[in-house]
């Protein structure tokens, strides 16, 4: 069950990303409609993070391509914000909440310039939006897990993007923070933003999302939650890997065989 849309915000075309020539994301092909809250689900190690990284140009695809707003990422970089997993940075880094959020305002162009007044205002606004205004001067090492996650989200908000990609924003946060984050995301959706969230809790998925991408190295389904959130597709997603696919993957790794023929 893969629904395609016209004028997608994000299009993945036959995307394959490999580690040591073994595909972690294999021929994933879908389109994402604008102004939706989209969940990405799949078991551990099913390539969700790799896929997001490929969208952001952090992993080089072995084949296929990604189009964001119909363009290459480099042309529309300032319209996309990425929130990596919380554990991907060292929270002992000596910086304050304010300075960490301000980093969302950095671009290639203003890197050597002074911070503008507008940047400062936006930063403060975003800190308010995630209810950390009382912690603005606090060092990030002194925050709780939920607060750290909110710093990350505020930083993404500061980017003032159109498309947001969040990698497991609910991992290890308390219920109150999760609720606060989800209502913030819903607000953003109401403003016409598109938000994609890697999610683990199947219980809450139908409540949170309008659209669901289900994957397990390969794409299982992509479509309206009412169309795809059913037992059969969930079984396919979580029911282990396909034997043949695993064998071919191993073979690729062993033989260093090219994933695509070069012309």
């Amino acid at each position, binding site marked *: *069950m*893969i629904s395609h849309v016209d004028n997608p915000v994000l299009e993945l*075309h*036959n995307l394959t990303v490999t580690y040591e020539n073994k595909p972690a994301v*294999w*021929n994933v*092909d879908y389109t994402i409609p604008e102004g939706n809250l989209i969940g990405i689900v799949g078991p551990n190690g099913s390539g969700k993070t790799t896929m997001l990284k490929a969208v952001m140009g952090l992993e080089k695809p072995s*084949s296929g391509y990604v189009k964001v707003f119909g363009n290459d990422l480099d042309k529309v970089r300032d319209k996309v914000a990425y929130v990596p997993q919380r554990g991907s940075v*060292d929270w*002992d880094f000596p910086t304050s909440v304010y300075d960490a959020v301000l980093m969302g305002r950095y671009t290639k162009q203003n890197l050597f310039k002074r911070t503008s007044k507008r940047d400062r205002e936006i930063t403060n606004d975003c800190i308010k939006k995630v209810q950390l205004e009382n912690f603005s001067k606090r060092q990030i*090492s002194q925050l709780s897990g939920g607060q750290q996650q909110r710093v990350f989200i505020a930083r993404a908000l500061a980017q003032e993007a159109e498309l947001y990609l969040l990698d497991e924003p609910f991992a290890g946060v308390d219920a109150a923070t999760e609720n606060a984050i989800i209502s913030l995301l819903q607000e953003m959706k109401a403003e016409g933003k598109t938000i994609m969230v890697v999610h683990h809790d199947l219980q809450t998925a139908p409540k949170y999302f309008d659209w669901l991408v289900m994957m397990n190295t*390969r*794409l*299982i*389904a992509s479509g309206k939650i009412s169309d795809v959130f059913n037992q059969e597709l969930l079984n396919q997603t979580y029911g282990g890997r*396909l*034997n*043949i*696919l695993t*064998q*071919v993957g191993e*073979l*690729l790794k062993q*033989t*260093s*065989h*090219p*994933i*695509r*023929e070069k*012309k």
Partner: protein
Amino acid sequence: MELIIDFFFKDPVVRWVLMAVILMCASAAIVGCFTFLRKRALVGDAISHAILPGICLAFIIAQTKNPMVLMLGAFGSGWLGLITIDFITNRTKLKTDAALGLVLSVFYGFGILLLTTIQNSGNASQSGLDKFLFGNAAAMMQSDAITFGLFSLVLIILIFILFNPLKLVTFDRNFAISRGIPVKRLELLLSVLTVFAIAIGIQAVGVVLMAALLITPASAARFWTHDLKWMIFLAAAFAVISGIMGTFISYTLPKMPTGPWIVTILSTIAIISIIFGFKKGILSKVRLRRLNKKKILRENILKCLYHLGEKAGNFDKFWSTWEILEKREMNKAQLKSGLKQLESRNLVILKGNAAKFSELGKEEGRRVTKIHRLWEIYLTKYMKMAPDHVHNDAEAMEHLITPEIEKDLEVHLKFPLIDPHDSPVPYKDLK
């Protein structure tokens, strides 16, 4: 030549020294394999620097250059360095790399402080302590050589006795715990052995370059084998060869420090291994890639001939090169070389500028075509890809899929008859 004979056979002291160097290098390399596999390569670097103050302190206290006393000091401060590294990483927010660098440089600096005070105090018996910085195996005394050789031998024997549990701890710590193996004690033992091997090894290469004697042989060996036993054997062999050559050089040119020569030779072996190693070496990868490319070219030509035959309903027809090129875009020179390869394998019959299948070739062409179409079906059915997206993937996988996977595919897909583009799947029996 005469020099070499002199070196190996004339001087009895040299024979002892050589024996000691061989054993010292081998023991360091063997212990180093475990350090390497436990991803603690740089810990060895830090410990070897941390040994310097211990040697100096032992000398200041005991006022003797007795190797046993100095070794005791060396072991003590090496151990203290190791504990300090763990302590800093566990008790502060500093990460491992900073803890290593800090211990390495501060211990070493303190050692230099002590060493220079000893030297400047004019103590006549001090001369020779600075040998520990770059090592000078060639200048070792016979009695020292015997002592160090024996120690190294004990170390090697210990590792051989405990080989199996140590291997388990290194490769799968959790499994080892679950089997009730005393992992903590074995790890402690491994640490003791490491510090011990370093304390001995600095006699040959000195504190500054000792890390190389631990890390480099293991790194080089890794490119030739995946088997721990072979890895240890090769690492020891590389280290021993370098040790002998380094000692020989500083024996013939007494001004040359032993350590840097041993390390340079060792590193050269390592670089050669990385390039030529047949398990993981760079060259083996390049070779594999070239072989893959040739195979792909051959199979593509066969498939093309098969398609042409299919269309014409005749597989025994000669096809000219331009007919082949019209069917499939490729470089003309490539096509020629591919056809030559196929002819030498008795897969096609060439006549001037035309080619036709041999029986064997027809079978191969059919097989590749069949895999291509089966994979396309698999992609649409199980990877849920649109029929117009599957061709490129199948183009690559048709060259990869083994007969076993081919069989699995047939069964899994229940012997389908047509692919997503309505072409028939060519089974052998149906023809």
